[in-house]
């Protein structure tokens, strides 16, 4: 309740807070100094102010995290960092695959006697199988239809000659033990097959290129990954 002769309570509160405009209001200060109602009120408000200032600190009810997770920060403002991070892992996997295939391919191509069997291209194996069969084997050994058969016939010039000089009837029942003549013919054909193998060699996967590309890709992926990590931690 506001008494007619008393200042407004908010003015008293301003005086209790020592606000300059209240402190310089002489009528207010004079009234409060001699008023049995207002003086205790101002004093209580000051005491209340002091008590509020002394309220104890409050500890969090649970430990708080001061920092958000790193990925959130990494993508904040730099969305391309997330894209880079996403592609480095597959790029590294592809690089390792290229390196392994390239390294093995390069090593085994230079190996002795290996490429003549397992290391050769399928076309070459098929051609060899056909050439080593006596008596027109190139014609009688079944080859897969399509490109393989065509490659076996066209890439080995000797196979046609061998076929034409085959013993009669060999096409129906191939001999397991060829005669001297057949052996010479077969030897001739095998040398021709070797020439054919060299030609086939040129269409094999470029292992050295794969190896080099893998190394370059791996290095690029590692550098990118390191860069993304540094930016993420920054």
């Amino acid at each position, binding site marked *: 309740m506001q008494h007619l002769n008393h200042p407004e*309570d*908010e003015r008293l*509160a*301003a*005086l*209790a*807070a*020592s*606000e300059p405009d209240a*402190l310089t209001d002489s009528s207010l*200060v004079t009234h409060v100094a001699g008023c049995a109602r207002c003086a205790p*009120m101002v004093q*209580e*408000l*000051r*005491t*209340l*102010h*002091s*008590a*509020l*200032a*002394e*309220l*104890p*600190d*409050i*500890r*969090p*009810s*649970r430990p*708080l*995290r*001061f*920092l*958000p997770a790193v990925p959130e*920060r990494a993508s*904040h*403002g730099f969305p391309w960092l997330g894209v880079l991070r996403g592609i480095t892992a597959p790029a590294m996997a592809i690089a390792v695959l290229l390196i392994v295939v390239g390294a093995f391919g390069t090593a085994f191509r230079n190996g002795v006697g290996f490429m003549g069997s397992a290391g050769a291209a399928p076309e070459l194996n098929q051609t060899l199988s056909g050439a080593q069969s006596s008596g027109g084997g190139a014609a009688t050994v079944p080859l897969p239809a399509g490109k393989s058969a065509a490659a076996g016939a066209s890439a080995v010039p000797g196979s046609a000659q061998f076929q034409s000089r085959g013993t009669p009837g060999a096409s129906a029942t191939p001999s397991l033990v060829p005669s001297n003549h057949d052996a010479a013919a077969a030897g001739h054909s095998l040398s021709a097959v070797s020439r054919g193998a060299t030609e086939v060699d040129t269409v094999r996967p470029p292992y050295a290129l794969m190896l080099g590309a893998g190394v370059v890709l791996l290095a690029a992926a590692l550098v990118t990954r390191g860069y993304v990590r540094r930016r993420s*931690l*920054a």
Partner: protein
Amino acid sequence: MAEPDRAPSSPRVQPLPDEEAVVALAVSGDRPAFARLMEHYQSACYGVAWRLLGDPDQAADATQDAFIHAYDALRSYRGGIFRSWLMRITANASYDILRRAQRRPTTALPEPAEGKAELPDIGAVNPFDEARKSELYRFLEQALRLLPEDQRVAVVLCDVYGMDYGEVASMTDSPIGTVKSRIHRGRLRLREILAPQRELFER
């Protein structure tokens, strides 16, 4: 006439000695610097949130949200008093939680007067006086929660955390005159609420 025991411009949470440098580091993306700032102000932020929300868990949520918002908004920090900037974010996070809680009336009301206040020092000179103070603080915290929201935030920031009127006005986006009026009315209302416990204020 005697001056008040503590002027509004002497906050209980003092800035770090090298705060400007630490803030500059944090703004440039230095995470440890930001963590150091949050660690320094966590008690004040939590205290503001707790006194606005009245619930320890909600206060922790609000403080945690405030830290995340502060981290995201750090690039847009344009100087000024870092504490005020952080407190404003904390108050806004508290308001968000308060509004969410008000939209869900089935949420249980917080238990009054059970904060995580620090216990009185066991080695205190006068145990009776310490007990009286604890009681006084408990009633004060209860009374604060009975204030209207605008008065409560103004009184908490100004009287409890020692911010000046300009700082509170900046934080609450209100004119200084409005802030003063809220604080005065809040104090008067507190005095009325605490009238039955007047003897606790007598020393």
